[in-house]
């Protein structure tokens, strides 16, 4: 009898201790995942929010393609000074442009567009293949590396924005753009250095409409 009381007392004591100092917690998987990712930069969500809340509202800042292409033809260095933006030390820079052109040719990775620049046609290559690089992230000037404690986060934005271009802009172009179609577009171009061939300028579209 005494022994049974002793065991019961130990069990009750153990129960009380466990109540306040549990050996383990049972947590729903979804909640555990949320807690694990708390504080971790979510590049996909950031890119999605940025796309709808800032990028689509920034089109007024894009320079007229006719004006830009004419300036590049006249003097690439002057065009760079006037219209380009650069985030880094070195020769690379970006253009943010909008325009309309007629499709001259198509291939797996781009559409060749003729843009009338005052009597003559100048070509741009609208990218329709896999999108790499930082044209969309850095072309608009809306994002700044200095705002990110870790450049890995900043870099992951590029990858996510490129995925959004591939998912939201390119399918329509790939499916319906034909030689002779007129396309209006807004996009960004990345230029590596002074040796980059600007004819045609390689443009990553962030919005495109087939007329």
């Amino acid at each position, binding site marked *: 009898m005494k022994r049974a009381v002793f065991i019961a007392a130990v069990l009750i004591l153990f129960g009380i201790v466990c109540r306040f100092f549990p050996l383990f917690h049972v947590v729903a998987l979804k909640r555990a995942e949320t807690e694990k990712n708390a504080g971790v930069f979510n590049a996909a969500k950031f890119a999605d929010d940025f796309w709808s809340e800032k990028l689509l509202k920034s089109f007024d800042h894009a320079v007229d393609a006719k004006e830009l292409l004419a300036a590049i033809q006249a003097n690439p260095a002057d065009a760079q000074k006037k219209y380009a933006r650069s985030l*880094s*030390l070195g*020769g690379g820079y970006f253009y943010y442009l909008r325009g309309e052109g007629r499709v001259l040719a198509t291939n797996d990775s781009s559409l060749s567009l003729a843009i009338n620049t005052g009597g003559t046609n100048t070509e741009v290559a609208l990218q329709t293949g896999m999108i*790499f*690089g930082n044209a969309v992230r850095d072309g608009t000037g809306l994002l700044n590396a*200095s705002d990110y404690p870790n*450049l890995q986060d900043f870099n992951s934005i590029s990858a996510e924005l490129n995925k959004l271009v591939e998912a939201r802009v390119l399918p329509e172009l790939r499916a319906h753009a034909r030689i002779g179609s007129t396309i209006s577009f807004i996009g960004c171009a990345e230029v590596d250095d002074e040796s980059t061939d600007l004819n045609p300028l390689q443009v990553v579209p962030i919005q495109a409409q087939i007329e």
Partner: protein
Amino acid sequence: MKSTILKLAGAILLALAMTFICQTTDADPTASRGKIAVVISTLNNPWFVVLADTAKQRAQELGYEATIFDSQNDTAVEASHFEDIIAGGYKAILFNPTDANSSVPNVLKAKAAGIPVFCIDREINSTNAAVTQVLSDSYSACVKMGQYFVKTVGQSGTYVELLGIVGDNNTWNRSKGFHSVVDNYPNLKMVAQQSADFDRAKGLEVMSAILQAHPDINAVFCGNDAMAMGAYQALVAAGKEKQVKVFGFDGADDVIKSIAEGKIEATAMQFPKLMARTAAEDADQYINGKRDFPQKLPVQVDLVTQHNVDKFIGYGKK
């Protein structure tokens, strides 16, 4: 009497000489502008030696006394250097961190002691510790590297990746930039991914071990040139240097020569001299009162291949 006059004349001469020496010392611009510390993650890699020497030289040109501290890739050694620097009355620190996270407290300690820190090449995970961070744009370079890799190796095959120090952001910026391209090609399969700590000897050791398990690979992508040279050495020892394409990162002298000789396929040219000079000049401007610096200043990195290698020399452009 005569000897007293002589002694007096001697004393006057000595005093005049001392005054002259002191005036000369005071006029020395090196002594007048103070001391700058150059703290480098490791000097066991020629690339970082160039970074350190250039930073020191530029600081000296600007009129400072500059001292190089080698952290030996050890955050404890780095912390000890910072203690010495704070106690030693330095005016600024040009800093190549050992670890993106573990180096932050050192920078904060220097900041609290009123010593500005200017990061070079390697990032710390903070936007309010260093005055500015001049960093190679490793990610963008490796996006270009990934595209060139697919172009030269092809859209199918097997490859190995040698990573740098796991705690360094550059390791992952390079790896992620590369994979942001290469992973789009499902028939290009990575059969091994291992760290060799940015070290040539470890690159040789790790690559030799990997070749035992995967003798038929087509390529190896290395997070820096030291590992690329180590990997190449392992391939030569295994008689596979013509079968396996080697890709590096840095723009080190020996790799630029190896690209020209057709031994290494490509590298990404960082500009250590440009970064080191920029950091030293930023420090000088800060000491002179400037406060408006970008927190992160990426520096463009150029792809060097067998097609354009004639435009480059070790650590820079011709």
